[in-house]
């Protein structure tokens, strides 16, 4: 997966101003940055939910901008996406939500096999006892775990996480971090995680990239990021109010 010189604007507001980023196979790359800097927008480019105004996004060898519908379908069927809110369908039970990608992509799969695979994924995230509940009947952390089960039910090659620990208490956040690590170990997936939770970033990242003012300003291992001499990076990871990052930006 590679972003090269990606520019994206919404009206007069330029969000991405030349993002260059390459993700290695089977690594967990964490993108950090302040709220509103375009981390989620960059992530949405990977699955074609956004198209760049300029630049190139290559996923599984396909250029997203030139990809046909069939190629986009192929990219998406090999990719899992955990949305910030979970984005579970509220009229379906948890197991129906998790089964949805399986039923849509493998129409001839026998119902027993669908049930077995759904149950296996729900067990992996500790949600098998809540499988007959509706999303409105479970907590935020449970929704995230159920959404993770849905994102990985097709055993994808690439999993994208948008703020997986936001709004969760520290214990549940650690559980989600463990699940992210376990998912990579169990499935051998490549993972991209967008977050501003540094605890989470340090515990799951092979490499961390910092996005600031529409560009990647720093990329390295967690240790390299910790010891970076970039004042913007230091201000962000230490959460200081004084420094080059203006409060209003």
């Amino acid at each position: 997966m590679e972003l090269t010189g990606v520019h994206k604007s919404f009206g007069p507001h330029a969000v991405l101003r030349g993002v260059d980023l390459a993700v290695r196979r089977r690594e967990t790359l964490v993108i950090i940055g302040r709220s509103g800097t375009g981390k989620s927008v960059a992530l949405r480019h990977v699955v074609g939910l956004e198209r760049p105004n300029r630049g190139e996004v290559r996923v599984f060898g396909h250029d997203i901008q030139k990809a046909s519908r069939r190629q986009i379908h192929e990219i998406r069927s090999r990719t899992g996406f955990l949305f910030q809110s979970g984005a579970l369908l509220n009229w379906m039970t948890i197991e129906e939500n998790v089964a949805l990608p399986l039923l849509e992509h493998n129409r001839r799969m026998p119902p027993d096999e669908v049930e077995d695979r759904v149950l296996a994924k729900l067990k992996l995230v500790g949600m098998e006892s809540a499988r007959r509940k509706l999303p409105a009947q479970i907590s935020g952390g449970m929704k995230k775990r159920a959404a993770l089960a849905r994102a990985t039910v097709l055993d994808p090659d690439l999993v994208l996480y948008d703020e997986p620990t936001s709004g969760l208490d520290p214990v549940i956040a650690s559980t989600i971090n463990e699940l992210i690590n376990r998912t990579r170990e169990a499935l051998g997936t490549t993972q991209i995680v967008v977050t501003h939770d540094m605890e989470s970033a340090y515990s799951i990242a092979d490499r961390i990239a910092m996005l600031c003012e529409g560009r990647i300003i720093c990329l390295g291992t967690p240790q390299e990021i910790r010891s970076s001499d970039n004042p913007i990076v230091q201000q962000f990871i230490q959460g200081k109010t004084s420094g080059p990052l203006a409060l209003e930006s």
Partner: protein
Amino acid sequence: MFSGIHRLGAFLIESTHGAGYGIWLLLHTLMQVPAIVRTKSRKDLYRQMFICGIQTIPVTVVVSIFTGMILALNGGLSLEQIGQEGLIGRIVAVSMAREMGPFMTALILAASVGSAMAAELGTMKVSEEIDALEVMSIDPGRFLVLPRVLSMAVMTPVVTIYIVLVGTLGGAASAYFQYDISFERFRTDALEYLTLKDIYTGILKAFIFGTVISIVGCSEGLRARGGAIGVGSATRQSVVISYLLIIVLGYYVTFTFYYIEW
């Protein structure tokens, strides 16, 4: 003055975009119709049919009874002056079948079901559920819009039929108690004057209204943006646009069937 021109231009662009999106969504949904046969789960289709056809029964019964009674009461007042109150049956039956039945059904369904569709899909849009479907390569047109349009296209004529029946009964009750016209006389007069054309025109109108209400509700919902305010705006717009289209299309369907020589 320039800001006024700017606002007018923005309104025209937004309206044209909305109309274009609605037409595209209708054509796209029609192309997906065979998918409903192939799909394993029709849970959402049945859920939508239940919402349109069953959950609206209490309000449709009350509205239709009183619509029939008002027609009988007003018609009787005029007919009584020329000693022809015995013709109330035909006025109530024809008005209900041809115009008031589909019209009242459409108003009720636009306000209750169409607005709910816009709110539901709008909420799904702003909470990234539509994006989640797209990432799973599930076409929202097939998965969300198709069951809603099909259920409304099927159930609006069904609701119209029972609104016409219940409304006519309400008219008969009013004619009996206000003008002393027996049920038998009311029924004979109504059936004598009511034609097959009145019935199928009413049902066709209901089918068109149902399709339009659901497409408007879905397209406004799918175009919602900006959180709760956007969802509220989409819901309001869906009702306003549906009402306008019901009035305009209702006129043209009547004109086509009763004033053009075929």
